[in-house]
C-alpha cells in the first residue's frame, strides 16, 4: 500500500500512464492496426484521403473517449456506493441501478419513440433513481440500517425485474431486436461523440460534487455514533453522493448500455493501493476505471475475430471471479 503523499502521487501518475497506454492501444489496435507514426499524424495533420485516418478519427477516437468516460463514471459510482452502503459488493450493476436505467431507456426508445440523447439520459436518470429507491426499500432492516446481503438480493431481484421487462419488449418489438440486444449487453462500439455532448454538463456536475464532497465522504466510513458525536450531519452528504451515483450510472448507461462489474472491481483495486481516503480513492478510480474499460474494449476485438465481443460481457467475465472472491470473504465491509 502507498502510504506517503509522494508515493500516492506517483501511484496516481502510474494509473494515469496506464489509462493513457490503454487509450493508445484502443486507438491503434483493431481489425486494422494503425502504426504509431500514423496515429500522431492523424491528429496533427489529418489527411482526408487516408482510410486509416478516417477510421481513427470517426470510429476509434469517439469509441475510446466514450469507453474512458463510461469506465471512469462507473468506477467512481461504485466507490461512492460502496461507501454509502458500507457494502463491499455494492456497484451500479450489482444493485440493479444499471438495469433500471437500461429498462427506462429501452421503454422510452421503443414504446415512445424518443430519440434525442437528452431525453434518453433523463429517462436513464429516472430509471436509476427508481431502481435505487426500490433497492433501498428492499435492503432495509428492521432497525433502519441496510443489511449487506439483503441489499445485494434486492439488487438482483430489481435487475431481474427490469431485465425481464426489457426482454419482453424485445420480443414484441422484433425490428429493434439487434440494437436493443446491445443495450442489454453493453457496448461502446458505434456510438458517436454527439451522444456524449448533451451529457457533459451532468458529468461535470457529478465530478464537481465529488470534488466538493471528498472530505465529507471520509466521514461516512466512520461509525454513525462517532459522526454524530463529532457534530456532523451525514444526511445531506448521503443525498448528494447518491445523486452523483445516479447521474454517473445513468450517463454511462445512456452512453453504452449495461456494463457490469467495473464499479465493483476498480474501487477494490484502488483501495488496496491507496487506502480508504477518498481524496486518493476517487481520482484513482476515475483513472483506473477508464483504463480498465479501454483495455477490456481493446481485448474484446481480439477474443473471437472477426466478431467483437460486447465489452459488457468482457467486464462481467472478468468481474465474476472477483465478486466470488469478495462473497467468500468473512466480512462484507469495504
Amino acid at each position: 500500500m502507498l502510504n506517503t503523499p509522494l508515493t500516492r502521487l506517483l501511484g496516481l501518475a502510474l494509473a494515469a500512464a496506464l489509462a493513457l497506454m490503454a487509450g493508445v492501444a484502443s486507438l491503434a489496435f483493431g481489425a486494422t492496426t494503425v502504426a504509431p507514426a500514423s496515429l500522431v499524424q492523424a491528429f496533427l495533420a489529418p489527411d482526408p484521403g487516408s482510410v486509416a485516418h478516417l477510421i481513427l478519427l470517426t470510429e476509434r477516437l469517439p469509441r475510446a473517449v466514450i469507453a474512458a468516460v463510461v469506465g471512469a463514471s462507473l468506477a467512481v459510482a461504485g466507490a461512492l456506493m460502496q461507501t454509502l452502503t458500507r457494502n463491499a459488493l455494492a456497484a451500479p450493476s450489482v444493485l440493479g441501478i444499471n438495469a433500471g436505467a437500461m429498462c427506462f431507456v429501452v421503454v422510452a426508445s421503443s414504446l415512445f419513440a424518443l430519440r434525442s440523447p437528452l431525453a434518453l439520459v433523463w429517462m436513464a436518470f429516472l430509471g436509476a433513481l427508481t431502481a435505487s429507491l426500490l433497492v433501498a426499500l428492499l435492503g432495509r432492516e428492521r432497525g433502519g440500517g441496510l443489511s449487506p446481503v439483503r441489499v445485494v438480493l434486492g439488487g438482483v431481484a430489481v435487475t431481474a425485474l427490469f431485465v425481464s421487462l426489457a426482454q419482453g419488449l424485445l420480443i414484441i418489438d422484433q425490428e429493434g431486436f439487434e440494437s436493443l440486444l446491445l443495450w442489454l449487453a453493453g457496448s461502446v462500439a458505434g456510438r458517436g461523440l454527439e451522444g456524449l455532448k448533451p451529457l457533459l454538463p451532468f458529468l461535470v456536475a457529478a465530478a464537481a460534487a465529488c470534488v466538493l464532497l471528498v472530505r465529507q465522504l471520509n466521514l461516512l466510513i466512520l461509525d454513525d455514533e462517532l459522526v454524530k458525536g463529532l457534530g456532523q450531519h451525514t444526511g445531506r452528504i448521503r443525498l448528494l453522493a447518491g445523486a452523483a451515483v445516479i447521474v454517473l450510472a445513468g450517463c454511462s448507461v445512456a452512453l453504452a448500455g449495461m456494463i457490469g462489474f467495473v464499479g465493483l472491481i476498480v474501487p477494490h483495486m484502488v483501495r488496496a493501493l491507496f487506502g480508504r481516503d477518498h481524496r486518493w480513492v476517487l481520482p484513482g478510480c476515475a483513472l483506473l476505471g477508464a483504463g480498465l474499460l479501454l483495455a477490456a474494449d481493446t481485448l474484446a476485438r481480439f477474443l473471437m475475430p472477426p466478431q467483437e465481443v460486447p465489452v459488457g460481457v468482457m467486464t462481467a467475465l472478468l468481474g465474476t471471479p472477483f465478486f466470488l472472491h469478495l462473497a467468500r470473504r468473512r466480512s462484507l465491509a469495504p
Partner: protein
Amino acid sequence: MSRAVILRAVGGRLSLRLERRTLTATLLLALVLAASALASLSLGSQATAPGEVLEALIHPERSEIALVVREIRLPRIVLAILVGACLGVAGLLLQGLVRNPLASPDVIGITGGASLAAVCFLALGGAALGEAWLPLAALAGALAVALLILALTGRNVTPARLVLIGIGVAAALGAGTTLVLVLSTDTTAMRAYVWLTGSLYAAQWGEVAGLAPWALLGLPLAMTLSRRLDVLALGDEMAIGLGTAVRGTRFALLLLAVALAGASVAYAGGLSFIGLLAPHIARRLVARGHAGLVPATAIIGALIVLHADLLGRVAFLPRDLPAGIFVAGIGAPFFIFLLYRWRR
C-alpha cells in the same frame, strides 16, 4: 385443536396435521385450477363451448374437435400446470433454505445455468440433433451450476454465502448467454431469445412425458421434506438443537429445488418470477407450516403459468406471445407490492 385435522398412517409412523383453513384454501385453489384448465381448453384461435370440450375429452371418436383439444391444447395446458407447480415449489424450497423471501431459482443462477446450456446447444447447431436433446442439455446445465455453487461455497454453507455465490455465478452465466446470443446468427438468436423468455408454444405430449416424472417424484418429496423446512426456519442453532443434520438437509433441499427448477426450465424455457411469486401468494392464503404451503404453492404456480400462457395465446391473436412476457408483466407490479408490504 378443532381447527385442525390430523391424519395418521397405520402404526403412527407418519402423521400429518392439517389446518382447516389450509384445507379449504387448497380445495378452493384446486377447483379454480380445474375451472381455469377447462376454460383454457375451450379458448383459442377458434373458441369452443366447454361442453364440446368435455365431449371431446371423454368420447374423442364422436367429436370433431378432438384433435385440437387432445393433441394441441391439452398437452400445452398440462405442461403449463406441471411447469408452474415445479417452479413454484422450487422457489418455496429455496426461500425456506436460505431463509430469505427474495430467493428463487432465477436469482441463484439455476435458471441461468440451464439457459446457458440451452443457448449453447442451439447456437452450436444442436437443433440438427433433434429437439429432444435440448431439455437434457438444459437440465445438465442446471445441475452443473448447482454443483459449482456448492463447490464454491465450501464447507461452511451459510445461507447468505450460498445466495451471494449463486448471484455471482448467475452474473457470469448471464454474460455467457449474452455472448453466445450476440455471436450467433440472427435467426438462432431470436429463437434462443424466445426460449429464454419462457414459452410453451407447440408443446407436445412428449414434453409432458419428459417433465411428468420429475414433478411426480419431486413434489411428494417436497411434501415429506416440508417439516425439515419448518425446523430450519427456526434458525441453525435451534435446528441443530432439535436434532436436524443441517448441512445434509440443506444439500438435499438444494438438490431437490434444482431438479424441479432445472426440469421445468428445460421444457418451458426461462420463466422467471414464478419461484418468487407463488410462495408469497401461498403464504397469504394458508396457515403457517410448509406442509400446507407445498400444495398451495404448487397450485398457485400452476395457475400463474396457465393464465399467462392463455393470455399469450388468446389476447394478441393471431400472434402467439411467450408466456414469460405475461409472467413478468404480472410479476413485476406484484413484486413491487411485496416490497411495499415487506417493509412495514
